[in-house]
C-alpha cells in the first residue's frame, strides 16, 4: 500500500511538471522514472525493459527522414506552390493548405510539419495584408487531424501501433474514414465562416504570384531520391502485415538509405537535428508507466472500468473516446496514451477478447483528436503558438481553446458515431 501511494505521488508530481513545463518535460519524465528506481518500486533493469525500442527507433528514423527532406526545401516549395495555385484567393489558400498540411502530417511528424509551414503562412498572410490567426489555428488543427489517419502520423498512434500487432494498413483502413469526415466538416466550416471575411487587394495578390518558388528546390537529385525512398517506405509500411516487419525497422532503413544518398558530410548535422529531448522524454514516460504497472494500479483501474460500465462494450468504447480525449486536452495526448495502453490491454483481457481492436481505435481517435482542444493537447499546438507569439501574433491560451474546443467536440462526436456504427 505504501509503495502504491508513493508511486502515485511520484507519478502525480511528474505529470504535473510535464503538463505545466515548470521543469523541462524530458527532465521531469526521466527524473520521475529514476525516482521510481531509487524508491525501490522497480529495479533499474525492470525500468529499462519498459522502454519501447520500436517507438524510439521509429521516432528517430522518421526524424532523420524529415531532417533530410527539409533540407531539400520541398516544404516551403509546396506551401508557396499551394498558395499560388489558388491564384492568391485567401479562402482557397486556407482550404488548400488545410488539405496539404493534413496530407503531409499523415506521413511525417506533426511538429516538423507545423514548424516548416507556419513561417511560410505568416509570410503569405503578411504579404496579402490579412490576419494570420485563422491560418495558424486551422493549419495546426489540420496537422493533428491528418496525423490521426496513419500509424506514423501522430505520436499516440505510434505508441498504440507499437504495443499492439496492428499494422499500418489496419490503421488506415480503420481511421481514415472518420478523419475524412472530420476534415470535410472542417473545410465546410472554414468556407462558411471565412468566405466573406477575408479581402485581399489585387496588388498584394500580384506580389504573391511573383514568388519564384522553383528556386527553393536546392538539390533536385537529393529531393528525387528522398521522395523515392519515402514512397518505398510507404510501400513497405503497407505490406507490413505480409512482410511481418516492425515499424522501426522500416523507418530506420529508409532513414539510413536516405543518409547514404545525401552528402556524407551532413550526417552529423542531420543526426544532431533529431529531437533527442523528445526521444528521451518518451523513454522516461515508458519507464514511469512501467513503474505504475508494476504496482498493479493500472490493472485495478481496468477492472474498475469494466465493472462500472457493467461489461457494456458500447459504454466502454465511448468512455475511452471521451475520457482519453478530454484527458489529452488537459494534459497532452502522449502521457495519456502511454498510461492508457496498459489499461486497455487489461480491459481487453477482462472482456475476453470480445472487443477485438475497437478499443484501440477508440483510444487513437480520442487521444489524437482530444489533442486539438488546448495548446498543451499536442506538441504541434505548442510549437505553432510559440512561433506565432515570437512574431508578435499573440495567441492566448483561451483564444486557442475557443477554436480548439469546437474542433475537438466535433471530432469526438464524429468518432463516437463512427465507432458506434462500425464496430458496436
Amino acid at each position: 500500500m505504501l509503495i502504491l501511494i508513493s508511486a502515485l505521488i511520484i507519478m502525480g508530481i511528474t505529470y504535473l511538471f510535464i503538463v505545466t513545463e515548470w521543469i523541462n518535460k524530458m527532465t521531469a519524465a526521466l527524473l520521475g522514472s529514476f525516482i521510481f528506481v531509487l524508491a525501490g518500486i522497480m529495479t533499474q533493469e525492470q525500468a529499462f525493459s519498459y522502454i519501447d525500442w520500436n517507438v524510439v527507433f521509429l521516432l528517430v528514423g522518421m526524424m532523420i527522414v524529415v531532417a533530410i527532406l527539409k533540407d531539400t526545401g520541398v516544404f516551403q516549395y509546396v506551401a508557396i506552390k499551394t498558395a499560388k495555385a489558388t491564384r492568391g484567393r485567401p479562402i482557397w489558400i486556407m482550404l488548400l493548405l488545410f488539405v496539404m498540411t493534413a496530407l503531409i502530417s499523415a506521413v511525417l511528424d506533426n511538429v516538423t510539419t507545423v514548424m516548416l509551414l507556419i513561417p511560410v503562412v505568416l509570410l503569405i498572410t503578411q504579404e496579402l495584408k490579412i490576419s494570420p490567426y485563422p491560418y495558424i489555428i486551422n493549419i495546426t488543427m489540420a496537422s493533428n487531424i491528418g496525423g490521426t489517419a496513419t500509424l506514423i502520423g501522430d505520436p499516440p498512434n505510434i505508441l498504440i501501433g507499437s504495443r499492439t500487432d496492428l499494422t499500418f494498413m489496419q490503421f488506415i483502413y480503420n481511421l481514415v474514414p472518420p478523419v475524412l469526415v472530420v476534415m470535410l466538416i472542417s473545410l465546410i466550416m472554414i468556407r462558411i465562416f471565412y468566405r466573406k471575411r477575408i479581402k485581399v487587394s489585387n496588388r498584394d495578390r500580384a506580389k504573391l504570384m511573383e514568388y519564384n518558388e522553383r528556386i527553393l528546390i536546392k538539390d533536385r537529385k537529393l529531393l528525387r531520391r528522398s521522395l523515392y525512398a519515402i514512397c518505398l517506405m510507404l510501400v513497405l509500411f503497407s505490406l507490413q502485415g505480409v512482410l511481418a516487419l516492425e515499424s522501426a525497422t522500416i523507418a530506420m532503413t529508409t532513414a539510413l538509405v536516405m543518409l547514404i544518398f545525401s552528402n556524407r558530410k551532413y550526417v552529423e548535422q542531420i543526426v544532431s537535428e533529431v529531437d533527442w529531448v523528445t526521444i528521451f522524454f518518451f523513454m522516461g514516460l515508458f519507464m514511469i508507466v512501467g513503474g505504475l504497472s508494476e504496482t498493479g494500479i493500472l490493472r485495478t483501474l481496468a477492472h474498475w472500468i469494466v465493472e462500472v460500465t457493467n461489461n457494456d462494450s458500447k459504454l466502454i468504447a465511448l468512455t475511452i473516446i471521451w475520457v482519453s480525449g478530454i484527458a489529452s486536452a488537459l494534459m497532452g495526448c502522449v502521457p495519456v496514451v502511454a498510461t492508457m495502453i496498459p489499461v486497455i490491454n487489461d480491459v481487453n483481457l477482462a472482456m475476453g477478447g470480445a472487443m477485438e481492436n475497437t478499443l484501440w481505435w477508440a483510444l487513437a481517435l480520442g487521444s489524437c483528436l482530444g489533442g486539438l482542444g488546448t495548446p498543451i493537447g499536442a506538441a504541434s499546438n505548442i510549437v505553432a503558438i510559440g512561433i506565432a507569439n515570437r512574431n508578435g501574433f499573440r495567441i492566448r491560451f483561451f483564444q486557442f481553446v475557443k477554436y480548439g474546443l469546437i474542433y475537438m467536440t466535433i471530432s469526438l462526436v464524429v468518432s463516437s458515431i463512427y465507432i458506434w456504427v462500425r464496430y458496436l
Partner: protein
Amino acid sequence: MRLVSLLDAQTIYIEHHETTLVRVYAKLVEKICQHHNLPECCNHLMDLILKREAEGSTTYPSGIAIPHVRLDNLDDTIIGMCVLKKPVVIGDISLKMVILIITDKSSSKLYLNLVATLLKLSRNPAQMSLLMTDNTAHDVIGSFRMMDLVVKEDLTIGDIMTQEPLFVRPESKLSEMGRLMAEHGISVFPVVDEKMRFLGEASVLNYLKVGIPEYLLLMDNLQFLRAFEPLERLIEKETDIQVREIMQNADIVLSPETSIIETVFEMIQHKKRFFSVVQDGKLVGVITAMDIYRRVIRA
C-alpha cells in the same frame, strides 16, 4: 616595474621658453645621442621620428605627446623627456610634456604599458602640476620617484580600450541611434541607463532585424522573395521604436583587467568584434578587434 627606474636625468630637460614640437624633438634626439650609442642617430633618427609623426599624430588631448621610434639592432628602451613651462599649442591641444621613446622592434608590450602609464599621468591634474613646478631634470626624477608610477608588466583591455565611448539609452529612438551610426560610422553601441549602468548592446544588425520578422528567419532560404516591403520601409518606423525593443543582452562583457590574449580569444570564440568593457556594472569603455590590431599589433 617603476616608471622612475626607466628614466635618466641626462635625457630629461626643462624648456622655459616658447618653442615648437620639432625643436623639442631635435633637442631630445641630441641629448639621447650624446649619452647612448644608437644604431641610428642625429638627423637620421630625427627623420624617422618625423616620418612616424606623419603617419599619425602622437599628441593626446590630455596635453602630452609621446613620439616613438623603433630601431633595428637595438635591444633597449630609452626615454627622453621634455617638460614645457610654456605649453606648445597644437590645434586645440595645449602640450605640457613631450616624451620620446626609442625602443626595439620586439618589445611592444613594455612600450604600450609605458604609454598607458604616461597617459594616466597626463590625466591626473595634481601629478601634472607637480611636474610643472620642477626646474631641473633631477627635480623631475624626484617627482617621479614621489609619484611612484608603476609600468604594468602586462597589458590589459583597460589600457587600450576606447574610454568614454558613444552609447545609447534604452529609451532612445532608433532614429537617434541611426544618426549616431551614420555620423560616426560605428555599427554597435553599448546601452546604458542614466547612471551609466550597462544594460546591453544594440547593433546595426539588431536595427535591420526590425525589418525582417522572425518567421523569415525560420526559413531555409529566401531566394524566392525578391523584395520585402517591411525592410524597405524600415526608416518609417525609426521614430516609433525604442532601443530597448531591439537591444540584446550581452552575454559576455569584459572587465578592464582582461588581458589582450583573453580578449582576442573571446572575440574569436564568439565571432564578436565588439565588446563592452564593464566595471562594477558600469560601462567604462569599449574594445573592438580593430583596436587590438591598431593599438597592439600595429603599435
